[in-house]
């Protein structure tokens, strides 16, 4: 087994220098601290993303992206195609799990301040990936063309129309017209299987390259302790030690996905009817709930701005601040400023949880 590996590597090395890459990767390590559990989240998100790509490709063999056929094709997958129910439910559940792990990955990187120099670009590429992932969620949700998806998309794109200046254009661009129609479905399908995957691949490549090149970040508290001689830094080789542990996590995720698909299959719903009244209690998916609820609570006017507009501006400003955190959090790891940012992070998590809970009531 090992000699086969060696032989293949040599063959490839003679052609494009694979050897030096392999040599570099073989030395990849992960710092062993009490925070090590958080280091699994990036790989878990990537693993779930790969699940999405694989199940998505399989779904593509039977799905039809037109209003006439979309719902029926998903129904067909769920009832007629062998194991179609499994592929579809895994795809839907894994989407939610991936967004959840993406949130966890982002917050753990935030609190462990892994965004500090030299990893600012990794943070920015990661944030862009996060928005792309949310875009995947939003575009994919419409594809089964059921009542809930149709009206959630209507509400969601309506909010896009409130963005100042470009709002009207943005709404028409997203919907492929003034209203949510078959044109919207075609467009969302294109985003979901071509545009977003393309962007995601590009950003992933950058993100992963940076992660390998710059190595694993060590939490500031540990760095300080090592500098002050209070402790020594233990490192674990990525290959094979950390990777085997990663695989335990991935297998567990597969088990969870299988269980969810078999015992809590994803609903089919009823086919969307553009002329029917919206059912009561239309909500976006859970990862948009806090924004949705925020907009609901805003009064009609805030100072001189219309309430909804102020809300969207506020959220946009917050997002920009969040992305620029590596440049704003000076003297990372030391002093009061850094504690302010940690506090801000706690506030953001609390805000998201509380508002999501209120939206679910």
């Amino acid at each position, binding site marked *: 087994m090992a000699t086969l590996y060696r032989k293949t590597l040599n063959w490839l090395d003679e052609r494009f220098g694979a050897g030096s890459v392999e040599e570099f990767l073989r030395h990849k390590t992960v710092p062993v601290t009490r925070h090590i559990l958080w280091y699994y989240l990036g790989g878990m998100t990537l693993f779930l993303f790969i699940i999405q790509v694989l199940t998505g490709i399989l779904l593509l063999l039977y799905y039809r992206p037109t209003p006439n056929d979309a719902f029926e094709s998903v129904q067909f997958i769920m009832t007629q195609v062998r194991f179609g129910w499994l592929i579809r439910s895994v795809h839907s559940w894994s989407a939610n799990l991936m967004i959840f792990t993406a949130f966890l990955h982002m917050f753990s990187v935030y609190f462990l301040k892994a965004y500090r120099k030299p990893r600012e670009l990794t943070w920015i590429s990661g944030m862009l990936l996060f928005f792309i992932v949310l875009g995947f969620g939003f575009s994919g949700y419409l594809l089964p063309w059921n009542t809930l998806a149709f009206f959630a998309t209507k509400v969601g794109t309506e909010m896009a129309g409130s963005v100042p200046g470009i709002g009207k254009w943005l709404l028409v661009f997203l919907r492929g017209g003034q209203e949510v129609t078959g044109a919207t479905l075609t467009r969302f399908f294109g985003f979901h299987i071509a545009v977003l995957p393309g962007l995601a691949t590009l950003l992933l490549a950058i993100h992963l390259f940076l992660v390998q090149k710059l190595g694993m970040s060590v939490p500031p508290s540990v760095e300080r302790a090592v500098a002050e001689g209070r402790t020594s830094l233990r490192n674990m080789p990525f290959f094979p030690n950390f990777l085997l542990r990663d*695989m335990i996590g991935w297998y567990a995720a597969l088990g969870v996905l299988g269980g969810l698909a078999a015992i809590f299959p994803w609903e089919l719903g009823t086919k969307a009817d553009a002329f029917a009244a919206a059912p009561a209690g239309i909500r976006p998916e859970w990862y948009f709930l806090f924004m949705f609820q925020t907009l609901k609570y805003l009064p009609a006017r805030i100072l001189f701005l219309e309430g909804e507009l102020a809300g969207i501006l506020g959220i946009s400003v917050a997002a920009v601040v969040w992305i620029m955190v590596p440049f704003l959090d000076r003297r990372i790891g030391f002093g009061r400023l850094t504690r302010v940012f940690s506090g801000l992070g706690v506030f953001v998590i609390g805000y998201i949880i509380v508002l999501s809970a209120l939206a679910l009531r």
Partner: protein
Amino acid sequence: MTKSIIFVALLFLSLRAAVAAPPKDTCITCHAALGGDLAKPASQFEVDVHHQAGLSCADCHGGDPSDDSMNAMSHAKGFRGAPKKNQIPEFCARCHSDAAYMHRFNPQMRVDQLSEYLTSVHGKRLKQGDTKVAACVDCHGVHNILAVSDTRAPVYPTNVASTCARCHADPAYMKGFDIPTNQFALYEKSVHAQTLAGGDTSAPTCSTCHGNHGATPPGVSSVANVCGTCHVMNEQLFEKSPHQAAFAKMGLPGCVQCHSNHEIVRPTDAWVGTGPQSVCTTCHTPGDKGYGAAQAMLADLTHLDSSLTRAAEVLNVAERAGMEVSGPKVELAGAHEDLVKARVDVHTFDAAAVGKLTDSGVEIAAKSYQAGVAALRERDYRRKGLGLALIAIVLAIGGLYLKIRQMESGDSIGHRGDVERKAREV
């Protein structure tokens, strides 16, 4: 110059005033000024459909609406005054039975209301001098008459029953007449009243079965025809059934005998058969053919009903477990239709006919039930498959865990040494 301008302006304004002013109607202006009861007709007339058509008080009552004095109401001016109760039908019919006149306003208007009315119980009694019966104004109103299609009109379908009930449900008023006064109360409980209240204006009200102008209760032999205008199948089957001749011989009203006339409620399967709520046992006794047929029909209906329920239940369980069963559910609707048809076929009083339909329905229900059972089996298959996959996953995780432990415990030429070595290198 200014003088001519003023003159032209005044001329213009007075012309405008003259053109804008409506024709003088002293009836309205005087009566409105009188106040109290005498002013009521004037104020009510605003909404009246005759007023909308451009008619005035004088068109019915005669007189001269341009005359300011009391002379307007003189015989010389053709004043007819308010008609007495027994004169009302002819009073209205002066126009409403004149085809040429009415068709100026509505070419499709019927003009036979008076002749119909004279055939009715109300019309006949009025001619005999009974002033308590209904004449035109009692149902249609006097000075605020609205079109039948107007939802506010007392004769709009949803209002008809309460209009009739004003007299017919008042025991004090109806004293002396030999008819019951509970019809309205009974009708309100009926499925027809509830359907009508729910917005389906095709549902029958009093006038649908009794007629409106020629109001007469249908006779014993013609009741089935009345019901049969909508319930065609039931009537046709009943006519061909042995009950038709039997009921006619006994002088029993066809449909009403079992379904009642006013309190027509939704029948249940228990009305068939021989139980406490059965209508069959009113006449049939144990041992006669009808008794046996009733039992057989009830048995078949109940069998189909319970098969439907059983199939629906299993499909619901499967659906809640996440299985896709919309196909079998649609098939089951076909069985439900068979049940509806079987219940209609009860009116043949032929157990074999009913049985044929229930058999077909039971077959469909059985197929749907099987589909539901298959769906539950598929659910179990999935869970078993999940179980196997989970076992494989647990094995894999177990193997990984042990491999890691073995590698890092330094029990061999393992990779444990690597951990420390690489740490030093980094």
